[in-house]
Every structure is written in structure tokens, then in C-alpha cells.
């Protein structure tokens, strides 16, 4: 049997397989070394990096909800300088695409981080976090305002030669609109979705469960919403789409791929099964073999609907 070809190109970003790990669910990658070989992944997206270290939100920060979880971590991270000095050299030893997720409170801060990463060796791409729902300034404030999104995307585009991915927020009226802005301002791809804003209430204490009051919902609960967003966006823009939202297994990833995603990210599943993303990649290979399909690229956006499906 021929080994199926899992390699994909997300614009200029070449990946050996279409499975990446989502930012905020995979630390800096190194934490997973006891559990998997990073080289089995298409790529990893590290925790959002800001110009300076951030301490994050006070606890409680997470709570399980039906088929999902809410988090309000608040982008706690070591800062871009420590990442480049301490984490990246160790990551470079592994044969895996490393994508840095970038966060700032102002356009200038986004640019500062992009510039520092641009001159660091060993990075494959930058993902702009314009969609974090758990910080007071920056984050979703950029991703939900088309004019602000245009400014930050253009500024970062001009600050780096690395492939640029804009990670979109689903907390907008029409996600196609922000996707088109990212495309127009020079993004090489879009990734979606970041978490959906939600909240949970402790009825005994009559308080929000999370100290931040609201949090971002992830996990299987959001998968149908995320597949729908992927389907909409992939038909609205020409740049590649990276789909994510509650992917636990290969069949979940296939939903996104058939709906138009060139690659996928595995998020919450990493918390539950540290080798979940490797399992997704292996499952994709098995699916291709089983169906006699030579390359995963043949499947992207091949969903048939309505009358088409009856033929």
C-alpha cells in the first residue's frame, strides 16, 4: 500500500501534515516531550507572546462546561525575549514547524513582537492573536473591529517576511468580513476559530465561576459552530483557512478539511490526551488509505451539498 501524502501548503508555509497544535493549549511545545515526538506533528503554535511577560488573570481561570471548557487565562506568558532566548533554541532541535502566536495591547506592541521574531532563527510563521476574549485591551478588540484589524494586520505584514496567519474571532456578526480584511491587508492565511465568549455561574455562591466573569469556550461543544465558520470563510476568501474548534479525533479534523480547511489545529484535546494531535494525524493517514485517496490535499473543500450531493 502506498503511504498517503499528508503534506500541505498553507500559503508559503509548508507542513508535513495538516495537523498543528493550537496556541494556548500546547505551552511552548517542550512540555509535551514526555508524551510525543514533535516531529510527528505538522506544526505547533506556541502560547501567545507579548512584548513583556504577562502574569495573566487571577484564579479561578478555568471550568468544565457541557462538552467543553471555559478559560480566562489572560495570556500569561514569558514574553517574546525569553521565548527567543530560552525556548526557541530547544524547539529548533525538533523537525517541526514552529508558529509563534503574537499578542499586543497596541499596534506598536504587535509590531515589536513581530520584528523580534522575524530576526530569530527557527520560526516557520507568525499567527496574530487578534481574538483573545480574556484581556482588557488588545486581543479581540482588534479582531472584532474591521478598521483596527486592518491596521494591525498591515503593520505586522510590513514588520515580517515570515508567513503571516491572522487568527479570527468568532465573536463577530459576520466572520467573513474580518477574514476579507485580513486577506486584503496581506495575511497569508486565516485560522479560525478562537474561543466563543461565554460564562458560567456558581449558583450556590451566586458568583461567576471565573474571576474574569467571562471566558472563552472551547472543546467539542463549539465544533459545529467552528465547522460552519470554516465553511463560510473558505468560500469568502482565496487565502488558505486553518480550521479549529473541538477537534478530538481524525474524523473531527476531516469535517473541517472537507468544509474548506487546508490545515487544522487541535486545542483542548491536548489537555486531555497529551498525544491527541499525533492521533489526529495518524487517523487522517488511515482514512486516506482506507478510502484509496493519495493526498489529503484532494479532500480540501470537497464537501458536496444539495443537488451536487445526489449525483
Amino acid at each position, binding site marked *: 500500500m502506498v503511504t498517503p501524502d499528508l503534506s500541505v501548503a498553507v500559503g508559503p508555509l509548508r507542513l508535513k501534515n495538516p495537523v498543528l497544535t493550537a496556541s494556548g493549549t500546547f505551552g511552548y511545545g517542550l512540555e509535551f516531550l514526555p508524551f510525543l515526538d514533535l516531529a510527528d506533528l505538522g506544526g505547533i503554535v506556541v502560547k501567545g507572546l507579548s512584548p513583556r511577560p504577562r502574569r495573566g488573570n487571577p484564579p479561578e481561570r478555568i471550568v468544565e462546561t457541557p462538552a467543553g*471548557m471555559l478559560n480566562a487565562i489572560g495570556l500569561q506568558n514569558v514574553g517574546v525575549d525569553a521565548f527567543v532566548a530560552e525556548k526557541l533554541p530547544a524547539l529548533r532541535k525538533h523537525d517541526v514547524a514552529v508558529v509563534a502566536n503574537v499578542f499586543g495591547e497596541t499596534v506598536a506592541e504587535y509590531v515589536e513582537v513581530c520584528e523580534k521574531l522575524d530576526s530569530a532563527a527557527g520560526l516557520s510563521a507568525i499567527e496574530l492573536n487578534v481574538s483573545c476574549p480574556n484581556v482588557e485591551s488588545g486581543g479581540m478588540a482588534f479582531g472584532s473591529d474591521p478598521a483596527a484589524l486592518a491596521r494591525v494586520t498591515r503593520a505586522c505584514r510590513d514588520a515580517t517576511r515570515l508567513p503571516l496567519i491572522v487568527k479570527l474571532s468568532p465573536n463577530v456578526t459576520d466572520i467573513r468580513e474580518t477574514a476579507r480584511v485580513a486577506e486584503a491587508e496581506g495575511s497569508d492565511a486565516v485560522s479560525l476559530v478562537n474561543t466563543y465568549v461565554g460564562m458560567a455561574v456558581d449558583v450556590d455562591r451566586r458568583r461567576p465561576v471565573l474571576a474574569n466573569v467571562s471566558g472563552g469556550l472551547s472543546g467539542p461543544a463549539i465544533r459545529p459552530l467552528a465547522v460552519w465558520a470554516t465553511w463560510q470563510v473558505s468560500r469568502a476568501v482565496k487565502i488558505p483557512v486553518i480550521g479549529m474548534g473541538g477537534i478530538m479525533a481524525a474524523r473531527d479534523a476531516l469535517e473541517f478539511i472537507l468544509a474548506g480547511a487546508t490545515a487544522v489545529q487541535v486545542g483542548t484535546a491536548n489537555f486531555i490526551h497529551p498525544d491527541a494531535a499525533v492521533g489526529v494525524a495518524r487517523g487522517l493517514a488511515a482514512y486516506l488509505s482506507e478510502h484509496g485517496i493519495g493526498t489529503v490535499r484532494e479532500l480540501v473543500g470537497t464537501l458536496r451539498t444539495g443537488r451536487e450531493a445526489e449525483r
Partner: protein
Amino acid sequence: MPQDLPAAVARNLDLGHGHFLLEFFAPQAAAEMVPGQFFMIGIPGAEVLLRRPFSVCGLPGTFADAPEGSVQVLYKVVGRGTALLSSLRPGAPLTALGPLGRGFDLEVASGVRPLLVAGGIGSAPFPALAAGLAARGTRPALVYGARSAGDLPLLDWFRERCDAVTVATEDGSLGRRGLVTEPLEDLLAGAGATRIYGCGPSPMLRAVAAIARSRGIPCEVSLEAHMACGFGVCLGCVVATHAGGGGKPVYERVCVEGPVMPAERIAW
């Protein structure tokens, strides 16, 4: 090195009042783990999404009737995850990720008496700790507090294995009426060199830490927190600490920098 292993329920003993002692076979982890470390335990196919963290309750030899290579965790049914766990019969599949985290410091200088302070189900890591201390030639004393007499799991085990057990219940149904802090103060008043190990609800740990600090007694506490991963990446389980030096507290992970921390490290 933690491992993610499929395991099966060996025993799931109902100890009464919602307390259970779960036993599973994990020989490599059992050989490696130290008191105070924990496992993330999941139930394959269950509607509960995240695994739940459980302190190691028994090391090899802690419980006389436990088979070689087995691990025990003590838990109380408090929500959906633990309710589901309590329904499992021997043979039911589990996933067990561990051993995880930083455990207790067992090096107790000679002449120093270890004193365990437990609040209710906070006693969960103490059988392993007591056994670990005993293996080094010291029998600890225990101050064991809870809301009521039914909330003191494994009390008989502790009575056999500890030097002295002082019980306090809030409703006065067993031992002294009130919180653990009063008998703790009394014990310390007459005691020589002591080292405190605490585990229980946060307000209790805060009070115990304050007593230890006021008397200059070394104190370690085992913390509990909601966790999604247990191995340091979700950043959901943080606690404010003074690890950053002077100035503002920083948030450290209970799962990696803890769950056991020196009490003075925590920004109570």
C-alpha cells in the same frame, strides 16, 4: 517521567459518607511516585470532558492488603466527575496520567517531629506521606478536622499509623468542637521542634500557614485547584506566590510548581 497509561479499576471501595478509595495497577508509576504527587484520571468514553486530579493516597506498602504495583487515590464525590468515578466497578477502564507535580519534602531532621494537619478530604495524600515518613523512621502526629464525624475518611488507619491523632469537628460530633487551628495551637505550645504538613480547604491552609509563620515552624501545604491538563500547559490551576522575589506576586502552576509548596512561598 510521567506516563499516560491505560489502567483498569482494581478496587473502588466505598468508605461511606461519599468517600471512596480507588485502586488501579500502575507498577512503573507506583515505583517512581513520591507522597504529594498526583494523577490525572480520566474515564474513557465518559461525558465528562476533562480528567480530574487526585493525590496519591497510597504508596507501595501504605495499605497492607494492596497488591504490589498498585496505586490508591482517596476521593470524595463532589461533582459530575467524581460521581461517575464512584460508579465504576472493578475492571472498568481508566486513563491515568502521572505521577505529576512536586511532592512533600520527606527529609525531617532528627529530633524534629512531623505534624500533619488535615481538613476533611484533604487527608487524601497523608497515608502515603505517613508511610513515607515511617519508612524514614519517624511516626508523624495528626490533627484532623472536618465539618462532622462522617467527614474524616481513613481515621482508623491514621489512628494506627500516627503517633497521636487529635480530632476536631465543627459540629462537635467527634473530638473537640471547632476548627483544627485551636488544637494545633495547643499542640505546638508544648512541642519541641516541629515540621508541619497541611492539606485541606484554602481558608484552613491559610490559617495553618499563619500559625506556622508566627512560630517560625517550617510548613509545607498541598494545594488543590481546578486543572485541565495537570502537566503545566493550560495555566488554569495557578496560585499567587512570591516566587518572583519582591514586589507583585506571580502566578505559579499548582500542577508543576506544586501541588506541594512551602507555605511561605504562597501569597495568601
